[in-house]
């Protein structure tokens, strides 16, 4: 049930959604790149990072984008040209498709799938296709190795990710992301509803596995075997230059942001504040201002989570391919299966 203050025609709603979607993808990507990649990483490495472009180098990202756009779009002679050109777009589009199901407020959502979790996890693996074809079509052995590694890795980590989320789905009793948010914010811990009931409390193991799997899905260190700039020279991205590389780059960081959005929806209570604070009982009673406040809350949670992702990225060395597979199949999957079993038993028992 919509209770937006003004009546908006359908084309207006569509336009708003498109603009919102672009903002929801590009805004996190920009903030992550600037805050974490440029600044946090620099301070960790005892340097200042960008200083010249704008105050504290805040315009650096635009300078970089300008630089990339000016560069020549090189296509290797033996490359499969059409697929080669398509690959970065597949990766970026999968990010846009992923953000579609994330609820940012009581009415601030793009679509309200009843099987939202299922959709998000399914779409999350579309980017594998983009990476695989990028590696294959580049006609470069390093790219091929990178692409194959990416395929193996992303499939291996898709599984613990799905299994980790199943615990949340069992607990919330719904696959709709909006319902999961509401379930967390209307819940109470032994009758105390001061902070609602974020699932990270009971599903901490699931949260941990989910974040590890996200790290692997994003091919960030310590799971960056497909990129591995010191051995595979950036793997599947080796041959890309100019704006195609830029699209990969945006895709990488935007996906980090979107997965952080999903993690905060699933485990940290999403856009909501505990409903008991304002005396709301259900989604229908939530005030309209949450449509503005919700996205801001989501952005904060996204920043915290991507901060952790980037922190790990900058301080860890990378796994070897076989160690990485072993970790997924022998540690994460059994753990997440156990998590599901325990969650199910407790859910039935209570």
């Amino acid at each position, binding site marked *: 049930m919509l209770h937006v203050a003004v009546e908006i025609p359908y084309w207006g709603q569509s336009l708003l959604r498109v603009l919102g979607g672009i903002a929801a993808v590009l805004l996190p990507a920009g903030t992550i790149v600037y805050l974490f990649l440029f600044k946090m990483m620099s301070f960790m490495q005892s340097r200042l990072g960008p200083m010249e472009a704008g105050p504290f180098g805040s315009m650096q990202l635009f300078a970089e984008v300008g630089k990339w756009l000016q560069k020549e779009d090189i296509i290797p002679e033996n490359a499969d040209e059409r697929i080669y050109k398509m690959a970065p777009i597949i990766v970026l589009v999968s990010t846009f498709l992923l953000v579609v199901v994330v609820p940012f407020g009581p009415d601030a959502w793009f679509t309200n799938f009843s099987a939202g979790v299922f959709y998000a996890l399914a779409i999350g693996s579309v980017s594998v296709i983009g990476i695989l074809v990028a590696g294959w079509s580049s006609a470069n052995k390093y790219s091929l190795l990178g692409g194959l590694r990416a395929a193996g890795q992303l499939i291996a980590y898709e599984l613990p990710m799905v299994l980790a989320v199943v615990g949340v789905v069992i607990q919330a009793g719904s696959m709709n992301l909006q319902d999961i948010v509401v379930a967390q914010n209307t819940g109470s811990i032994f009758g105390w509803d001061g902070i609602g009931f974020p699932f990270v409390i009971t599903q901490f193991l699931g949260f941990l596995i989910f974040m590890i799997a996200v790290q692997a899905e994003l091919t960030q260190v310590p799971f960056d075997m497909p990129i591995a700039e010191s051995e595979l020279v950036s793997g599947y991205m080796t041959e890309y230059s100019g704006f195609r590389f830029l699209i990969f780059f945006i895709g990488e960081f935007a996906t980090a942001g979107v997965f952080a959005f999903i993690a905060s929806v699933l485990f940290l209570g999403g856009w909501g504040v505990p409903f008991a604070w304002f005396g709301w009982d259900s989604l229908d009673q939530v005030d309209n201002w949450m449509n503005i406040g919700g996205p801001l809350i989501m952005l904060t949670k996204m920043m915290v989570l991507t901060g952790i992702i980037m922190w790990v990225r900058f301080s860890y*060395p990378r*796994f070897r391919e076989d160690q990485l597979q072993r970790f997924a199949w022998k540690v994460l999957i059994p753990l997440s299966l156990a998590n599901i079993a325990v969650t199910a038993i407790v859910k039935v028992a209570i």
Partner: protein
Amino acid sequence: MTMLSERQQLSYIAAQAADARLNVELETEGMTLNIGPQHPATHGTLRIIARLDGEQVVWAEPVAGYMHRGYEKLTEVRTYPQVTALINRIDWLGSFANEVPFILAAEQLMEVEAPPRAQHIRTILFELSRIANVSLFLGDLGVQMGAVTPVFMAFRDREYVLNLIEGATGGRFHPNFDRIGGLKDDLPKGWIDETRQVMKKLRNFCDEIEDLLFGNEIFQSRTRGIGVIPAEVAKEYGLSGANLRASGVDWDLRRDQKLPLAYDKVDFRVWTHPDGDSWARCWIRLQEVREATKIVDQLIETIPAGPVMAKVPRIIKVPEGEAWVSTENPLGEMGYYVVSKGDLGPFRVKIRSASFNNISITPWVLKGVYVPDIITILASLYFILGDIDR
């Protein structure tokens, strides 16, 4: 095989299995991966041709020579004092250490000995260049495995050492400070105090690296048991320096050799490690930096007074003869075989550089490893390209 640990045996078996796989009729189509000459893991222009089966290496060979600069030949058309400016550039990270064995060889031929003060300062600078060299290795190790932060710490703290070298010699990278019969100049004022503080900083840096990198589980799983070189094989391939000591051979030219350097006046430990894997090589180098800081600490307290230059004729003519001097350089044993015909310049110089021999073991050690391990093994063998190609 009785002497080998279980880990070493396993790696041996893996190598054999890789060999056998080549001969099996039903093999999958292999791929030849050409690593380098332009590749981030090769620190320059080393090329490694690796034949792969999946991700496993069945055959690998290093191809050196892309940066050959003909130093042995160039020395023949230079006078003795000019040669030091040239050979500085062999191992460019520890450049002062390159000058020392050559100067010692020339001194041996001329039967000149540097005064004790000069010997002392030479040893200090030698160890400083070792620290500058190996501390960068410690940082670079992380980069090869995808951890980008340690290398900046290494650059940060190496800067202090380079400042010291610059303060004493005037050159950060290529000091060209060693002279036949002594040194160009004495130490500047306040240098010793500063050195004392810098050595403390470097020990902190070593602790930091040990915490951040060596204590990391992923780092350990990437290096432990990888690229095992048994002691006999290491000796056969002529490995030297930390690579040899990591295989358990207690061999250090600083201690084992009587040269006019001040090593006999200091108390230091030569570390060895029984494992011979990548981890051992990295760990030995970490300890080596620590020992080097201790050596410097001891030496700056005991610098004798006196001149820094012996009485040497203005125009240096080295009498006829041949001399071989090698020292324990940051990368391993580095030696010069100088043949003189009594001219202003050497008749022939043969340079034995450590990295060339260290890298020659790659076909043996890379057999049967995975592609990512190529990088860690190469990084742990630690070569400087100028030291391979000369």
